[in-house]
């Protein structure tokens, strides 16, 4: 359970071997490359490869065309060593043009069908009139317009009440009125203009339609049917085009992805005259595999050096954890990635999270349910699901201590009597005598965790040779002595009844550490620049004084913060007590329903709150003391290619 050891790899070869090396390089799914820009500015005579990428625009175009044609492009490895971009582009455009023509034809036919349907709607309106359409359209002194008008606009016709037209509405829906207006040829232009300004949508009756509205309807139904057959033919043609293109475009896609990736990989290549190099990090165990990948290529050197051998580069971090603790890296990475030399907090987070969650959410039944739910989601790839399994296990274990199974406090009593020869459960949460012990216990856990975090911080800092932070800060040795001494004094006075607060103790354990913390910045400044107080002492004193004051309060607050653990134990038990009381009140007929729903409610609400509260304790009370999280994650660039 640590951070995986890395090695710095440098691949060097002649420029004429660039494409071959990049082809091989793009197959490496364990290589974390460093961009060339990190080296180019600092090495004279070096350069990057900055040609325009010919593959990316075509790849984008292919993706656009495929989306339009509803083709899902699936990716697999391409074996091609070369492709003709112009030829591919020509084929794609030809196929797409054919598709576009079919699509346009389809839209036109659909429009005709829609117009016929609208016309049929009008014919339905005219059915009762018993007039032949031929007679309507043959009128010499009347112009007839069928269509639909927005209902708002029907109201507005009052403004034109003096104009020469007759308006008749047949029926209305929520937005439109299906209607007709009549006018004379002389005024047709003006009236058409008025109705157009009111957003009248004219419905043209096709010229092939004759006879009565019923006959017209029949004719248009036939026309619709014919058009739908045409539509079917067009659809068949479209499907044919699409199926022809599916495999072809998928092949082009794979090729273009490969060549685009290779071209993009040039951003990691540093040109050094006639040679080039690619630098990056590889997990120690994979170094041989990288060397083997290039072993058959002549004049390609693979240099293997320690991770820190190049001061310009920060080794990336890959966390390595066991089955139990691995899912908790999700929380760690949420805060930040540990740097390569930093302590991996994942195991500590795993153990403390499980412990605190188990204490606050102890119930055998609910713990088992949480495990099952967590397992269900873990199977679907959710990291939180995996965490759920582990914290569910912890809840179950603590549930055995509390003797609680879905809120039933007496269910496990026979087990305690027969197996453990105990009169009752080990811990009765709701007992008034237990409350004080619970709160003191949670404070004790908090103190232990805080001290542990400070110790980790000291070790971390000393490893990095950051002696000022390691020794003089509030989370360093000075802070540890201050905090530890205060805790010891309290324990000594309250438990052992010994007063340790003599002047010697106070000076060594309180005053001296406080002075060191107070002067931390000044000491750092003295070591770095030779001047202890670069700005005046007055300003330094004011600032440092309030900082020290804040540090003392923070110690107190952080310690008291762990009281919430005890609070949630009581609240969980209290909520289950309420559920049981309600179940009793409801009676045996529906009591079981109340118990089930109550448990679900408590699991969801309390589970979520407890999870968030423990995370808060982890991040705020613990991480802030020892974890910086400024690392860079290990990202093998070509993992998904």
């Amino acid at each position: 359970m640590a951070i995986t050891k890395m090695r710095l790899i440098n691949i060097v070869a002649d420029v004429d071997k660039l494409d071959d090396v990049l082809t091989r390089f793009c197959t490496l799914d364990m290589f974390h490359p460093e961009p060339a820009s990190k080296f180019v500015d600092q090495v004279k005579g070096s350069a990057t490869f900055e040609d325009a990428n010919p593959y990316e625009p075509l790849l984008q175009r292919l993706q656009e065309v495929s989306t339009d044609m509803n083709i899902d492009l699936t990716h697999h490895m391409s074996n091609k060593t070369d492709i003709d971009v112009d030829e591919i582009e020509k084929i794609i455009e030809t196929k797409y043009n054919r598709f576009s023509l079919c699509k346009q034809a389809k839209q036109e036919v659909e429009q005709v069908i829609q117009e016929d349907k609208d016309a049929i709607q009008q014919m339905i309106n005219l059915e009762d009139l018993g007039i032949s359409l031929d007679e309507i359209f043959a009128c010499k002194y009347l112009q007839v317009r069928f269509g639909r008008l927005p209902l708002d606009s029907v109201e507005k016709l009052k403004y034109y009440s003096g104009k020469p037209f007759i308006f008749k509405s047949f029926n209305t829906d929520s937005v439109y009125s299906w209607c007709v207006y009549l006018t004379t040829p002389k005024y047709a232009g003006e009236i058409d203009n008025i109705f157009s300004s009111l957003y009248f949508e004219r419905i043209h009756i096709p010229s092939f339609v004759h006879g009565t509205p019923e006959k017209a309807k029949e004719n248009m139904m036939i026309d619709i049917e014919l058009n739908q057959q045409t539509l079917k033919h067009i659809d068949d043609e479209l499907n044919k085009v699409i199926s022809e293109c599916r495999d072809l475009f998928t092949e082009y896609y794979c090729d273009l992805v490969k060549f685009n990736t290779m071209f993009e990989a040039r951003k990691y290549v540093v040109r050094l005259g006639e040679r080039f190099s690619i630098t990056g990090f590889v997990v120690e165990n994979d170094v041989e595999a990288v060397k083997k990948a290039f072993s058959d290529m002549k004049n390609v050197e693979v240099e293997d050096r320690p991770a820190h051998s190049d001061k310009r580069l920060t080794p990336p971090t890959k966390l390595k954890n066991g089955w139990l603790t691995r899912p908790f890296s999700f929380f760690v990475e949420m805060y930040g990635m540990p740097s390569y030399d930093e302590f991996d907090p994942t195991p500590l987070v795993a153990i403390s999270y499980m412990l605190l969650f188990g204490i606050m959410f102890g119930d055998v039944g609910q713990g088992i349910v949480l495990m099952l739910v967590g397992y269900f989601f873990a199977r679907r790839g959710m990291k939180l699901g995996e965490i759920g399994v582990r914290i569910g296990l912890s809840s179950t274990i603590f549930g055995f201590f509390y003797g609680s199974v879905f809120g039933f406090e007496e269910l496990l009593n026979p087990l305690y009597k027969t197996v453990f020869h105990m009169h009752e459960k080990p811990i009765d949460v709701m007992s008034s005598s237990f409350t004080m012990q619970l709160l003191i216990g949670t404070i004790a856990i908090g103190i232990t965790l805080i001290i542990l975090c400070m110790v980790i911080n000291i070790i971390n800092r000393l490893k990095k040779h950051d002696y000022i932070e390691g020794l003089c800060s509030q989370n360093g040795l000075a802070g540890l002595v201050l905090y530890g001494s205060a805790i010891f004094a309290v324990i000594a006075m309250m438990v052992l009844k010994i007063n340790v607060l003599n002047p010697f103790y106070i000076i060594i354990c309180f005053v001296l550490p406080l002075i060191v913390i107070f002067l931390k910045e000044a000491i750092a400044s003295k070591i770095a620049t030779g001047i202890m107080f670069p700005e005046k002492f007055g300003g330094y004193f004011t600032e440092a004084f309030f900082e020290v004051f804040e540090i003392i309060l923070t110690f107190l607050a952080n310690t008291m913060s762990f009281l919430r653990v005890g609070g949630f134990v009581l609240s969980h038990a209290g909520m289950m007590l309420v559920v049981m009381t309600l179940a009793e009140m409801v009676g045996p007929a529906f009591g079981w329903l109340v118990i089930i729903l109550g448990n679900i409610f408590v699991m969801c609400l309390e589970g979520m709150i407890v999870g968030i509260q423990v995370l808060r304790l982890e991040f705020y009370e613990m991480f802030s003391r020892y974890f910086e999280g400024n690392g860079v994650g290990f990202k093998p660039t070509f993992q998904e290619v």
Partner: protein
Amino acid sequence: MSLSANGMASKAKAMYGKHLSKYDYEELLKKHSVGEVANYLKNNTYYSETLKDVKENSVHRGQLENLLRRSSFDRRVRLHRYADYNTKEFYKCSIELAEINQVLACIRALMSDDYTSFIAELPLYLNPYTSYDLNEFLSVKRISDLKKVLKSTKYYENLNPFLNDENMDYAECEHALMVYYYKHMKDIVNKKYHGKSKKELLSMIDEMIELKNISKIYRMKKYFDGTPEEIKKVLLECKNLMNKERYEKVLNANSSSEVVKILAESTYNIELDEESFLHIEDYINRIQYDLAKKCMNFSTNPSVIYLAYFILDDIELTNLINIVEGIRYNVSPSKIEQLIIY
């Protein structure tokens, strides 16, 4: 504050969450016809319900714009349902603004002899909410008819001195109505709100007024060479959020370029390039958009959130109308894009 008022804040934020995104605007700018725009809005955005009966092939530009305006109005009215009983009057100010805009549109139509366009765009869907019957506009042929329509309304007293059949000054009419509107809004806020809520709301209203004033000052300087006295007559009264000294400098500036220079150093940080395509109103709208978005994201006052939503919704509507009209009249997408605020 009642619980339902807090409900308004949540509802407004939820509705704002559905507003068009940068991606939607980019897609709309690629369209070549009004029908394509209607099709995109119908199938990909929350306007699907509003446009469900629209036929993309034959929809008229004006009709599409009317439907979008109606959708915007319906959304705002939906929020009124959550209003506190005490503060309902404040939310009704948005209806008042719609009424005032119709009166002004009617005056413009009468003055320009283009009443048919006004009739086509007359939003009769407002009728259930307005204090006068919009159908009465259908019988207006001249200013004196308009006076009869407005006689029983609250706008008559302020507007009557400026309504003449001859030599009517539209700017005076607009000024009179806007003075009434903002004064009425502020009176409601002063009466019905207290403490921090009142302060926040008044500050927001003053910001809106001040931005309008800045636009007027700029236009008067650029197009009319207005003197400070002439400009002061058309400004709306507000508590200046800009430094008073700077405000005086702006009023006394010799040219519109000088106005821009002074405003660049103000709270609003206006850096308008006078050669660019953008008009001052576009720039002012951008500032208003940023201020409203900030209130929407950070305020907890339901009335402030409502006002912010009102502004943001109005800007989205303006964006869509700019896109529809730009496409309809073959303006290049790059030029349309300059007008879009998001």
